[in-house]
């Protein structure tokens, strides 16, 4: 019981501290801005730990963070294999193929206006569909290996990426294009020097959406059949054995991979589209 009260006290104390830190103009310093979410995060973890211990929650329902960390550290070899199988082979190769295909399709769509008017509504429609459902069919076609996961990922990322790329390529004014024409620039020169740079913010937006979709696709596809390796397989099998600490460790792998990829894309965006208003501070 004391642990539960301690958790409550800790929560209120952290809440008060964050409230104090953000009042009276103190939130303008970048240190405070970094500190406040960190305090919130550690408090959530600490309260979780204290509540699980204080209320004696069985580990088959909710394991404590310390226990998850132990499992994670103890089985890094196993989880590394899962990471390679699902993230590197399944998600990233599928992401690369899907994005490349979408970019090529976007240029085709952009060259032929008829195709644009036809394909764009279809693309918008497809982007809203639950494409994850295609996973069992892909597993049937391409087998249990990483190829079927990559195929699901390709299909999932293609349409959001296409829609964003086409919208980006449209994002130049008639004046800018006319200027290129007065310079005597060819279609490809205009594309390379004016329209692709102008489309970059859209491309990065699409890439961010696509990268999260890729993780989801690769993991969910493993629920339909996989070799005895992979983040999705680990989650499903550990879940069946009620080893929830292992499930959480596998989810941690997915979370770390997802936020790392997202972080890399954000950094690349900042480096490449530094001129865009949304990046200037």
């Amino acid at each position, binding site marked *: 019981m004391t642990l539960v009260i301690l958790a409550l006290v800790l929560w209120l104390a952290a*809440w008060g501290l*964050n*409230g104090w*830190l*953000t*009042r009276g103009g103190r*939130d303008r310093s970048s240190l*405070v*801005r970094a500190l*406040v*979410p960190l*305090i*919130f995060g550690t408090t959530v973890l600490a309260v979780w730990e204290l509540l699980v211990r204080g209320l004696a929650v069985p580990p*088959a*329902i*909710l394991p404590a963070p310390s226990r998850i960390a132990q499992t994670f550290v103890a089985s890094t070899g196993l989880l590394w294999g899962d990471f390679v199988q699902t993230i590197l082979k399944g998600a990233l190769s599928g992401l690369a193929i899907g994005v490349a295909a979408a970019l090529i399709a976007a240029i085709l769509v952009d060259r032929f206006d*008829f*195709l*644009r*008017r*036809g*394909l764009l*509504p*279809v693309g918008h*429609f497809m982007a*809203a*569909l*639950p494409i*994850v*459902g295609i996973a*069992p*069919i892909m597993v*049937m*076609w391409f087998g249990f290996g990483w190829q079927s996961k990559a195929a699901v990922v390709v299909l999932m990322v293609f349409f959001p990426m296409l829609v964003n790329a086409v919208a980006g390529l449209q994002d130049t004014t008639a004046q800018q294009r006319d200027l290129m024409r007065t310079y005597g620039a060819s279609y490809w020169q205009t594309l390379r020097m004016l329209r692709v740079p102008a489309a970059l913010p859209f491309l990065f937006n699409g890439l961010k959406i696509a*990268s*999260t979709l890729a*993780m*989801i696709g690769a*993991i*969910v596809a493993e*629920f*339909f*059949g996989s070799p005895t390796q992979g*983040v*999705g397989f680990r*989650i*499903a099998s550990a*879940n069946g054995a*009620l080893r*929830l600490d292992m*499930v*959480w460790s*596998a*989810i941690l792998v*997915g*979370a770390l991979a*997802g*936020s790392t*990829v*997202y972080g890399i894309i954000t950094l690349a965006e900042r480096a490449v589209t530094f001129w865009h208003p949304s990046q200037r501070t």
Partner: protein
Amino acid sequence: MREKVLPVLTVVLGILALWYLAAIPMNVREALTAAERAGAVVEGGSATERQQLPALRLVLLNPALALEGAWTQDRPRLPAPHQVAAELWSSVAGQPPGSNRSLLRHAGITLGATLAGFAIGSLAGILLAVGIVHNRAMDLSVMPWAIISQTIPIVALAPMIVVVLNSVGVQGLLPKAVISAYLSFFPVAVGMVKGLRTPDPMQIDLMRTWNASRAQIFWLLRLPASVPYLFASLKVAVAAALVGTIVGELPIQRGGLGARMLAGSYYGQTTQIWAALVMAAVLAAALVWFMGFLERRTLRAMGVPA
């Protein structure tokens, strides 16, 4: 509108034609095996030798047999569109609506869980957004984590949430709804925060000169200004909620489109998977369209030029 119909129709017809064409090499092996059993002469050697040949080569060697068997098999690797349509029709209209084989029943189960999760998720998202806009501490502490959590494959939690809720005695609609609520929560929260912040300082100052209270600023200025953002994110959220429900149905196996897909993949019933997939697509399109309809009605009632 009219200038869109022709290109869209062309693209859709093109996709259908590609689909029919792709079905020929996809199904050629099974078609040739069946034809051989029926006594026809098959080029390309025995069944084991044919395994080594690429599918396109087999089609070129046996064009007539490949064409004949491509679109009529019982369990094709790739069912032709009309086979999917026939399966869809027979499982929607050919079964009593309450029967376990009726696709309408499964679609209904999925729809119920999706709507429940969507309602919970978007309500929670709106409440969090209101908190974030009015409380600086909440903004700084919760918002970064909300963004990070977007990059986490949340769907992976589905099997665990189902098992955990089961063990504490929660069954039926709710475990699936929890997953779809989680997925629809963040789009709404992020969109609402953006929307509630659209009124610029001048407009807020104007409200202050009229001596409006914080609550009045919220109800009369911030909330109306956020409505377009709300609907844009509701459209994203309702599609995400459907994905969440379908994935949540995989480990539960008590009906629903996701369960139907998994059953189809266990028993090799490809047409059944495709029919469930088309049903899910129809459901998603209907939900997004309905949100768009509500959006147009609301915005028109509020006097926003369409």
